[in-house]
């Protein structure tokens, strides 16, 4: 494969998998801006090291390894609110997240269908909470709830979505 084809492959793989890498990072650093910064730093390293990637191996697993070391390298510059856990717990969580990567991908796909099934009012709340520039207070304001009620509703809706996703996956696994 020549350099040009490798570049195309790199772009394709990054484009296809950046969401999964972000998801992994967010699990380790549950702060959106910090996780996005780390995603960009990870992408830079992926670009630099792409020659080392073996095409027949798992790109996401390889990228997540890079992401993990980016988190480790960056943790000293974050406050405790960004990287929550000590190294041992961080490593255990990272391993769990890496092992669960295929399942998490399936859950992501199933979530789209579960979101469609939500009551429009709930859907508006959750989307407003998670959209760029959104947040719990914005979601509360938009949907005419108090902030406390919005927190409660968000917890309930996330639980609903998680149950729906689990149900869908278990239904799919029945032969």
């Amino acid at each position: 494969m020549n350099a040009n084809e490798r570049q195309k492959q790199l772009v394709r793989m990054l484009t296809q998998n950046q969401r999964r890498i972000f998801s992994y990072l967010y699990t380790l650093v549950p702060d959106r801006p910090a996780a996005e910064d780390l995603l960009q730093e990870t992408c830079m390293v992926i670009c630099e090291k792409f020659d080392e990637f073996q095409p027949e191996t798992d790109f996401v697993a390889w990228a997540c390894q890079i992401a993990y070391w980016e988190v480790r390298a960056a943790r000293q510059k974050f406050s405790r609110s960004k990287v929550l856990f000590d190294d041992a717990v961080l490593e255990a969580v990272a391993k769990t997240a890496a092992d669960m990567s295929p399942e998490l991908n399936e859950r992501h796909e199933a979530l789209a269908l579960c979101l469609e099934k939500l009551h429009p009012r709930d859907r508006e709340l959750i989307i407003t909470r998670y959209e760029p520039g959104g947040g719990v207070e914005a979601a509360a304001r938009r949907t005419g709830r108090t902030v406390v009620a919005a927190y409660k509703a968000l917890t309930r809706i996330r639980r609903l979505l998680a149950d729906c996703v689990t149900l869908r996956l278990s239904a799919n696994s029945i032969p």
Partner: protein
Amino acid sequence: MNLSDPERLELDELCSGLVDGTLSEPQRRRLEQLLAASSEARRIYVRTLALSASLFDYASEMQAEAPERTAQPANLVAVRRWWWAIGPLGAAAAIALAFWLGSVSKHGGGSESQPREVVAHLSGGKNCQWAGAALQPGAQLQSGQRIELAAGFAEISFDSGALLVLEGPASLDVSSAWEAVLRRGTLKASVPQEALGFRVSNAAVDVVDLGTEFSMVAEENGATEVFVLRGAVEAHPRAASDAAARPSLVLRESQARRFERNRVAEVRNREQKLQRFARKIALDRVLRPASFVHWPFDETAGDFAAVQVTGTSSADSNKPGTPVLPLPTRNERGENQGEGKVQETRPALPNPLLPFPGREGEARANATKYAARLAFAPLSTHATARAEGRWGRALNCDGQLTATALLPPFAQRNPLTVAFWIKVPPDASVAESEPILSGPLASNGDPVEFAWNRAPHQGAFGALRTSVGRGFIIGTTPLRDGQWHHVAVVFSHSLRGPQKMQIKQYVDGRLDRVSAKHFIKAKVKGLGGEPRVVLSGTETLAIGRRQNEQGTAGFRGAIDELFLLDRALSQKEIRILMQQNRLPTRDALAAN
């Protein structure tokens, strides 16, 4: 260790608190304890956090926001919220770009900036230290945004083309693409011909540029000194009352004045100050790589118009065949000093997705694959299909001749620039005002059309009109005059969200004043599929006619040097593209 039911409930609550930012320190310690002890807890935790990560992703794709109610003038007719009526999300399984259709908003010759519209960007700097949150190189700046520079130099490029270099400590309000307020500190303004009329004001003086380079120093006590380095400016002293009003004065090269509350005075040490301001500051500039397709239309015969598919790199390569590595760009953040918070974070999508320049053979294959194919109607002849162009030859559409080109793959909702030269006969009829270009550049495949406006009740007749679905924006410069005009339309992300796009039209390198807009904003609706829609390389661009209306009578006029670029060009880059028919290098940008 398996979790008990109460522990599962507790973990659920802790995870919720974590994603919503309400976790206390004791709760954090408890969460850490559970995760350290139980693999089941870790699996639940990972699923919960991944759910939130997925929701961030889907929420970026969906429309859940009600239309803005505040920014609309009182005479607006009721906004048609048809997108809401069809069901907030369920009906839109595919990504769809919806425009908010309000009444036509007319803009006069004044400022056209909308609330929170991006009107400038941080294009360079040297040793910048910010008072408050730092601005990243390349950061977009919105109307109303205050820039607080503690030390160093910051270069701000306005969409009009005006360039301000701010020297810290300084405070500047970005008012619009055509205006800024220097609250305190020193600036140097370089205003190209296209931005003539650019204004810098403060409590002491209004300085209106007449094509020039000038410096301004605003002191803490309100007194302001103005120095003209080149060209001329018109200075209007501000007065506390009508009685104290003083006449405007025109300052020419090497002249300077000091504007105080109740008087205009000579400047002390004028020569030394002029010399200091005339010094060039070597700034570090941001130059992002771009990939583009270019149809030069230089063929003299045949039914084929070759294309060049290539790009420039941040290392200044502007040669075909030079590899371009699409590194993800850093986050661009609009920092509002007043509110002190980050307003928007861009997604980290590797941006340029057009085919990369490669080996000689591949470049040749692309040149054939994405070439425009000309379609001759029975009444049109090959003899008139080519004309003298602005650069070499041009495609001459006679109202019958049309062309179709395969679009290379690219990310649809990323910033984009479409640029071309156009010559429309002064006697072109309304029936001959079909789109100059039309292509599925919007995310739902809605054609984006570029035409001259034939509806005088909607906006300036004969001016550039960019339509997306049912929305449109109309400029003011007449195109229907038999002269060559350079047109560039820039689609860029709004600071209100990456899925909301801004459209800016440039004619002859100048930001064209908007005579009418018929959409307020665009947002993405939809659910499912890949989050970033990338054209597959099977979509086509129609030249001289509407998309999907093969064979209909089309546009009459000549078109030349069509570029489709995968990022939003600045005014300066557009001007250089217009003048040199190629993308600028870093050196060209620094020199211009």
